[in-house]
């Protein structure tokens, strides 16, 4: 039981707690803030896993851009809360049951592989995955050049799509 392990457990509890907060909070602003906290804890997980670049990108992109966009839309629409009411009464118990089943399966999978595969029991020897910007960049622009370019096209398409979807047709009221 060393310091890192304690840190890990604290973070794990925080991650699950914030996810629960997202799941249960009635107000969508609070839900969004819980999700931001969740992203932050996951970013610290990334730091623990020796991926500082991904951690910081996680904070910048998810927390800094995506979630701000969510907040923006929530506030813009003024749709923090929905009135109570349930159209599909059987949906909730069924969903919870299935999710529990999924969790059991995942646990079983982890347990089973823990028995058979050594690598899951303990991570490999001291590794050098401290991905510096250079190595990541080299991999990104050599091995993954095509996906990278495709991503840029994807972003462009998304941008155009967002603009077209939200553009007001002339004469139409908001």
């Amino acid at each position: 039981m060393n310091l890192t392990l304690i840190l890990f457990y604290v973070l794990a509890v925080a991650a699950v707690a914030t996810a629960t907060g997202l799941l249960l909070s009635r107000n969508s602003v609070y839900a969004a803030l819980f999700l931001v906290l969740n992203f932050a804890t996951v970013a610290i997980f990334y730091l623990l896993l020796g991926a500082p670049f991904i951690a910081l990108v996680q904070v910048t992109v998810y927390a800094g851009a995506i979630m701000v966009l969510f907040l923006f839309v929530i506030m813009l629409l003024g749709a923090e809360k929905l009135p109570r009411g349930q159209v599909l009464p059987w949906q909730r118990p069924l969903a919870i049951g299935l999710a529990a089943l999924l969790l059991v399966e995942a646990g079983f999978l982890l347990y089973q592989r823990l028995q058979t595969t050594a690598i899951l029991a303990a991570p490999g020897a001291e590794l050098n995955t401290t991905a510096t910007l250079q190595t990541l960049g080299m991999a990104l622009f050599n091995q993954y050049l095509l996906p990278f370019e495709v991503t840029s096209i994807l972003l462009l398409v998304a941008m155009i799509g967002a603009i077209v979807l939200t553009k007001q047709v002339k004469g139409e009221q908001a």
Partner: protein
Amino acid sequence: MGVLGGIPLSGFLAVSAILFTMGALGVLIRRNAIIIFMSVELMLNAANLAFVAFARAYNVLNGQLFVFFVMTVSAAEVAVGLALIVAIFRSKHSIDVDQMSSLKG
């Protein structure tokens, strides 16, 4: 980097699995379209965590690069998705997904 020292990989995977399940649950039981959307993000995030953990375990960079691509894709998805929500809100004046059950706008 002795930081990982005592933490087993399965710990990260367990957290990832729990987060994923909660995200899926969020998609299924919430009616607010924006929260459903955020739950999807949570699921993606859980997957990312697993990617990075495996990347660390197998000592390869590919996992981190996948995370990079997942982030880009989810950014694109959020842009379009939020635009859709705004467009739907304009016509329905609500973001309750249960009210979007007809094909006619």
